[in-house]
């Protein structure tokens, strides 16, 4: 499209460094009027950094930003916004305790009045016109925290669109949406592009990129490695561009091992490692789940978080649980790790139901790789040795009465550091000082060290770079080969497909919508994740 329409926003030779780390390396990028440009790349490729530079959140270390071919310098996100750059954040920047109208006023242009004004009517009028044009109905006076995720995203889009907005940046907007909500978002994006706005669409999902964009720019390790018109592209080309032809991850993408790997012998089926029977969790109970604060995006959508979930996993199997965020994954993980007591139903480990508490589950052989590494996985200020000790501190082997055998615990930690190749510090280093990948290795080392019977892994690769992802996947495969039953709860469908042994369950609205083979088609998964099969029986709130 470049050349056809005028370029609105461009980045020329943008470099951004953090300390010694170069996140962006002489990146060139442009978006034209009415053009939808997809920015594709793995986690850590530099997509978010580039967008933060373009939206004024970060200043570039080097290079220039051009608007209408004139160099500009954004002092702040607000400055960028006032010049027509809007941003729809992946983690919504909405204040849950404020109403929709108030959230809109918060970010409305300052020209609407001074600090003491309260032009909520004016702001609302504009927003209502916009919403009307997009065909949305929005409860303007409701607290945003009480709205469904999809509606929250619409509020976020309304916030980003301030009248004269010329470029709108979407940061992984589909990550939080259900497959049914995604097409609606795409329709919105197309309409906005038809109005002549430039759209930047950040994603690492190939199908979405192909479906939506006019042009694709691929980032890898801070560099633009590929640019092309979408109509000339297919998934294979993009995947190779994204991960590099030689990397492990590319291999995974090309040939998901899936069913081909060794499955457990049928004789072992009798001794299910994990048996989950009719587990039901109500939302009220969900709010009691833990101390972790729920963010803006996890408003209760459903009367029951889990509804009679039943499945069993055998030793040597990786059982995938797919689904869009917020369909009961959090609760299922909490129940499976002994943190939450279900309203009804049982969880049995090797045929026995342990008492509902995390320590009892751990002793029964359940190891957990939690979703939130920093909030649940690690006690950040403590040392590496202390963090891995959390997995065994109560075992008689490592204590005499109430006194811990630190020497032994440290020796064990030292061995784990070597075995799991944890870098960046010794056993006496605070885990705060480690990189994200190495922190995750600590979590994994703790989970896998005791040869657990059952492993619950929740989004185990979120936020990791390609190398670390391959490492985590290998670790899980190895554990499976050693006879562990692995439950992999992930929102990354490609991860689920490549790792699951025989079966993948899809969670929708707290129910298992269906169990299919990992190599089932993407359409099948999409339908299940959208709850299509259950449409007649489930009244979706």
């Amino acid at each position: 499209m470049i050349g056809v329409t005028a370029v609105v926003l461009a980045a020329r030779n943008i470099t951004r460094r953090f300390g010694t780390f170069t996140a962006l390396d002489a990146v060139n990028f442009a978006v034209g009027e009415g053009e939808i440009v997809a920015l594709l790349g793995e986690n850590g490729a530099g997509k978010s950094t580039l967008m933060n530079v373009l939206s004024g959140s970060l200043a570039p270390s080097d290079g220039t930003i051009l608007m209408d071919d004139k160099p500009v310098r954004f002092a702040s996100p607000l400055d960028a916004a006032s010049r027509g750059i809007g941003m729809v954040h992946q983690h919504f920047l909405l204040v849950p305790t404020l109403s929709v109208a108030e959230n809109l006023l918060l970010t409305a242009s300052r020209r609407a009045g001074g600090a003491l004004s309260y032009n909520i009517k004016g702001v609302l009028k504009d927003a209502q016109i916009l919403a009307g044009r997009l065909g949305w109905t929005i409860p303007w006076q409701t607290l945003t925290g009480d709205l469904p995720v999809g509606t929250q995203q619409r509020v976020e889009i309304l916030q980003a669109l301030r009248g004269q907005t010329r470029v709108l940046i979407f940061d992984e907007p589909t990550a939080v949406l259900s497959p049914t909500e995604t097409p609606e978002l795409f329709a919105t994006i197309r309409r906005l592009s038809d109005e002549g706005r430039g759209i930047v669409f950040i994603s690492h999902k190939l199908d979405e990129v192909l479906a939506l964009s006019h042009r694709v720019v691929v980032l890898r390790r801070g560099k633009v490695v590929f640019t092309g018109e979408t109509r000339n592209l297919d998934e294979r080309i993009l995947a190779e561009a994204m991960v590099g032809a030689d990397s492990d991850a590319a291999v995974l993408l090309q040939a998901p091992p899936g069913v081909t790997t060794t499955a457990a012998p049928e004789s072992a089926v009798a001794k299910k490692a994990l048996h989950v029977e009719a587990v039901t969790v109500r939302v009220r109970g969900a709010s009691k789940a833990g101390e972790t604060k729920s963010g803006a995006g996890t408003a209760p959508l459903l009367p029951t978080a889990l509804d009679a979930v039943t499945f069993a996993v055998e030793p040597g199997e990786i059982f995938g649980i797919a689904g869009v965020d917020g369909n009961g994954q959090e609760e299922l993980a909490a129940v499976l790790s002994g943190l939450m007591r279900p309203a009804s139903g049982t969880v049995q480990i090797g045929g026995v139901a342990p008492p509902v508490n995390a320590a009892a589950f751990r002793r029964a052989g359940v190891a957990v790789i939690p979703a939130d590494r920093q909030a649940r996985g690690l006690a950040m200020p403590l040392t590496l040795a202390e963090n891995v000790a959390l997995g065994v501190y109560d075992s008689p082997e490592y204590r005499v009465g109430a006194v811990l055998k630190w020497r032994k615990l440290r020796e064990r930690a030292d061995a784990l550091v070597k075995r799991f190749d944890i870098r960046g510090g010794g056993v006496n280093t605070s885990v705060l000082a480690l990189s994200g990948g190495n922190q995750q290795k600590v979590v994994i080392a703790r989970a896998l060290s005791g040869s657990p019977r059952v492993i619950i892994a929740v989004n185990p690769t979120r936020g990791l770079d390609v190398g670390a992802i391959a490492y985590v996947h290998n670790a899980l495969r190895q554990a499976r080969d050693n006879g562990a039953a692995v439950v992999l709860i992930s929102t990354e469908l490609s991860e689920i497909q490549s790792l699951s042994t025989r079966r993948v369950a899809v969670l929708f609205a707290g129910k298992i919508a269906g169990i299919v083979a990992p190599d089932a088609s993407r359409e099948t998964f999409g339908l299940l994740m959208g709850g299509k099969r259950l449409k007649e029986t489930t009244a979706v709130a």
Partner: protein
Amino acid sequence: MILDATVITQTLAAATPVLLVATGAVFGERVGVINIGLEGLMVFGALTAVVVSVATGSPFLALLAAAGAGVLGAAVFAAFAIWLKRDQVIVGTTINFLAFGLTGVWYRAYLNGFGAGKTATELPDLIGQGAGGVDALTLLAFALVPAAHYLLFRTRLGLTIRATGEVPEAASAAGTQVNRLRALVTLFVGGLCGLGGAALSIGIANSFTEGITGGRGFVALAVVVFGRWNPVGAMGAALLFAAADVLQFTLQARNVWAGLPYPVFLAVPYVLTLVALAVRGAKGKSPAALGTAFEQG
């Protein structure tokens, strides 16, 4: 009869220092700053008001100076808690040490020097006289409540303040300099604390002693929680607290419950607050980012 005009004006006067401070603290906590040092800032204001009133004979100049002293003390808090991002509870505690110590040194030096034997000019009553009188600060304190409520819930500034205490990242994305706003609000709270101290020293007591604040700054903190971070709620709580105090005076004055040792009466307001907190609970209601430092991106 327990309830009469004097009881009412007395309750208003007793509520004034706490209310001024609590109104400020509502803003402080709404913007995400918890300041245990309010008590100390009050002491700063109380002494400054007396010294300036003695020196100039103008209680209104004294009020101005007291507010200034509060702002200055709050600047130390802001420097350490917001700029250097130190723990707010610990910085607040330190401010109390600093205020009690500095006012002590200053007060003694002052009394040994030019201040001995002189009296401060009291803040005049605008309505009525004596025990039934209402002075300018009391009027200001109560007039501030609707103004504060309006500012917090019906202006864009108030909206920004509320957003900053909940999700500072969102406020920052909307163009707010989070730490600058927090610092400014902290200074504003300091000014109100200074006035709260002045309300005691030249509003009620017309002199200064060390310990004149008698824990009212801490009470204001409780009042903010009890009032659910809302100026009108804080006013209700401050009045309740003052009423408990005045009730205590009245009960003693009228020989009701004579024979009960007076410490029992004195503990009533604190126990009442604790019970109120326990009954209402405070779970999940405080501003989400209260007490946390913000790193501007």
